[in-house]
């Protein structure tokens, strides 16, 4: 067992699970989506991206690419949230919430790809 591999796997899976937790619930209901969960998802995704830096293999490149996509989507979601609650005159409404959650949903797909790549890589290594 390799501690580095454990940490690596932990952050990739945590990025996916947090993202999934935020995504769960009615798409346009602000009560179903917690801002702390989005914050945690962003932080863990950034950490996961940093951990993936500097891997020269093909899988490493794909992992990094999917992570970058996820971070970008989540940051877009955070920006929309900030705009909706502070800049927009009407405050947070169902339309903004829906776009935040759909952006997070896109990030979740990228995170799912990350997890699948990690599993595929491990399985290929076993053989």
């Amino acid at each position, binding site marked *: 067992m390799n501690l580095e591999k454990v940490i690596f796997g932990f952050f990739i899976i945590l990025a996916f699970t947090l993202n999934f937790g935020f995504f769960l619930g009615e798409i346009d209901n602000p009560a179903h989506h917690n801002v702390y969960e989005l914050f945690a998802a962003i932080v863990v995704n950034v950490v996961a991206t940093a951990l993936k830096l500097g891997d*020269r293999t093909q899988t490493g490149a794909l992992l990094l690419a999917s992570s970058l996509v996820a971070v970008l989507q989540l940051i877009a979601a955070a920006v929309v949230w900030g705009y909706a609650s502070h800049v927009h005159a009407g405050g947070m409404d169902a339309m903004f919430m829906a776009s935040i959650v759909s952006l997070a949903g896109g990030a979740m797909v990228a995170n799912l790809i990350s997890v699948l790549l990690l599993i595929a890589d491990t399985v290929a290594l076993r053989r």
Partner: protein
Amino acid sequence: MPATINKVLFLFLRRMRAPLLALTAAYSISVLGLVLIPGVDDQGEPWRMDFFHAFYFVTYMATTIGFGEIPHAFTEAQRMWTVFAVYLSVVAWLYAIGKILALIQDPAFRLAVSQHAFDRTIRKLQRSFFIVCGYGDTGALVVRSLLGRNGFAVVIDQNPDRINELTLEDYALQIPGLCADASVASRLLDAGLLNPHCRGVVALTSDDAVNLRIAIAAKLLNPDRPVICRAESHDTARNMASFGTDQIINPFDIFGQRLALALHSPAHHLLHEWLGNIPGSPLPMPIDPPCGRWILCGFGRFGKAVHAGLLQEGVDVTLVEADPEGTDCPPDCIEGRGTEADTLREAGIETASGIVAGTGRDDYNLSIVMTARELNPELFMVGRQNRESSSLLFAAADLPLVMRHDRVAPRRTRGFAGAAPRFGWKEIFFCRKVLKPRR
């Protein structure tokens, strides 16, 4: 090549991993703390900072800009947390910036970046060039004379100091220099051996074996391109000639022949000097070497070549050599360095008409010349200069003929490199007429 840019990028990213993690941690901890700690607004009502304002505050606090406590004045608990967050984030930034600076200073990283820059330059090169291996005194002269003739050069040298010298030199154009071992074939490819603009390879390192390897590699990888090599031993020269090296320069032999030519027909020698001169250097004055008995100090590679040249002209030569057995001297030679008056007197300096100071050390050669001048001011003196740094002293010694083996090679190289195809006037006229309308 994409391989080097990848190397640079991955090296950079891998080293940035730890600083990025540190920054992410510092920012997220600071932001989270600010969001969680309860505060009060300007009416004294309980108020919690949201993520937007917390991130805004941390952004200017971490970079020590400090716009103040926004949007409402902080409570004591918030201030306590801010003190902690300031130290945390400022230290994280210092660490990250230190890492980035260290990475930029890192020799491996700089090497990768400079190699990438070199590869780019070679790929984008739009003018015909020669690859010059070895940037010593000779290499520098070759580059200068190539530039003087509207040519271009790419330099490879193993010594980083020499490459630095190259970048500091005030050439009209920036000459790309690669710090690498030219005898490794892939380095020659890096320097553009297969580039369609490459017109040839010039191997001028001080090591015959390296020159030989360069010649072999160049001839195998790109047989169409001429290869010009320096060889100081006849063995290497024969070896190079056997696989078709286009021009082999033995500086000692050439000087021996030149001295013979100067004795035999001074005007021919002068014409040769003028035509083969390095662009921009003053034209040499005619010399008139005497045909009496000559004294030759030093019977090494240079001495042997000069000896052969003098004998060819039927001149009587007295040899002076410190190690007659080691250098295979004829039996009638005089043992000694030639730097002492005794040895020179024994060699009959008073009755001699010329002397060649041809040892491998500049201080000995200058000493021989000065001693000889005192003993016989009428002597015709030839000095061998080994190092560029002794130029000032040889100029002060005011010798009629100074032999520099680093000067011989550039002339030969230039003579070869600059040689136009052998067209007559009619052909040149015709070519001009045909080519002009196209331009």
